[in-house]
């Protein structure tokens, strides 16, 4: 699947199927620091992500 990351904006590829929790662990991200968006929808840590999915991992800290 394609994973868009922020700060700085970049895209990485992660092999599916995997739950959101596992993707965050692989990318070394704390669940408390990010939200995962697929299309226009927020998904929880239990959501199963497939190879064809495109997700954005959005940090919850922003602005200033």
């Amino acid at each position, binding site marked *: 699947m394609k994973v868009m990351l*922020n*700060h700085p904006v970049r895209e990485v590829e992660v092999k599916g199927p995997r739950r959101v929790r596992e993707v965050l662990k692989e990318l070394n991200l*704390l*669940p*408390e*620091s*990010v*939200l995962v*968006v697929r299309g226009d*929808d*927020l*998904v*929880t*840590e*239990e*959501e199963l992500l497939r190879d064809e999915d495109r997700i954005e991992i*959005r*940090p*919850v*800290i*922003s*602005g*200033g």
Partner: protein
Amino acid sequence: MRCRKCKAKAVLDIPRHHTAFCKACLTEFVCAQVERAIAEERMFTTTDRVLVAVSGGKDSLSLLDILRKLGYQADAFYVDLGIGEYSRQSKEKVERYTSAHGIPLHVHELKEDEGAGINDLADLVRRPTCSVCGTLKRYHFNRTAVEKGYHVLATGHNLDDEAARLLGNILHWQTEYLEKQGPTLPDSVEGFAKKVKPLYRLAEREIAAYAIVNGIDYIVEECPNAQGAKMLLYKDILNRLESESPGTKQAFYWGFLARQEADKQARPSMAEHDRAVLHPCATCGQPTTGEICSYCKLMARAKKDGPATTVSP
């Protein structure tokens, strides 16, 4: 994962409350937490005019959205710090949101009114940018609220902001700042607006989720000046603790507030203390503890050290 309330598909789990919500129930939860904060801390009522300091970020735009949804008279105030593309984008987000919802927006332009953007001003006075930014924003938030006749100034500080600030103050034993760490600061003296933080019961992640499910277009980028700032480190440390032990942030900050409340009888009230130490600044008339307020001192120094034509008073 299902919503604990209505069993629809959940969009956010909240381990600190052992719960998960769908879009509609998340919005209801966030609004209920803000309503509770406003009532418990006696922040304002629906008859008060509230000025919300907006930055274009998720917290302040969500706060404006929530207050309007709850029926409060909330207008917006934006300080354009002149940080290149970042300020241009954040201002655009604020203008787009307020104009789409018919919300009055007041804007203060640093480059126009002070004669220089925040980075140039910080260079001129040789102080950290975040510190100069804090002084300028606090000054203009208060001054605009008072001059434009608002009863209260609201900011989008959330549970993570307050817990991180508390951690920073305790690590350095800056006990003199602890008194001002509550979610409500009184309008103790003439020229001082009441200041409130209605999001103090909500974690940063919950507010970001609210912004996304409610279609609020906010600036996702961090302020370029904040990179490497201590507050981000404290937030990261607290989030590591929170992930291991959900509820740590609220136990830390709310526990602090409960202790402060319990100690209240033993100390003079903040309003009494303010009335004893504050008086009008000799230059601008805003309340200050010294002869000249920190904003006027900063601007005087920038004017003295900068090119004569660059910095306005």
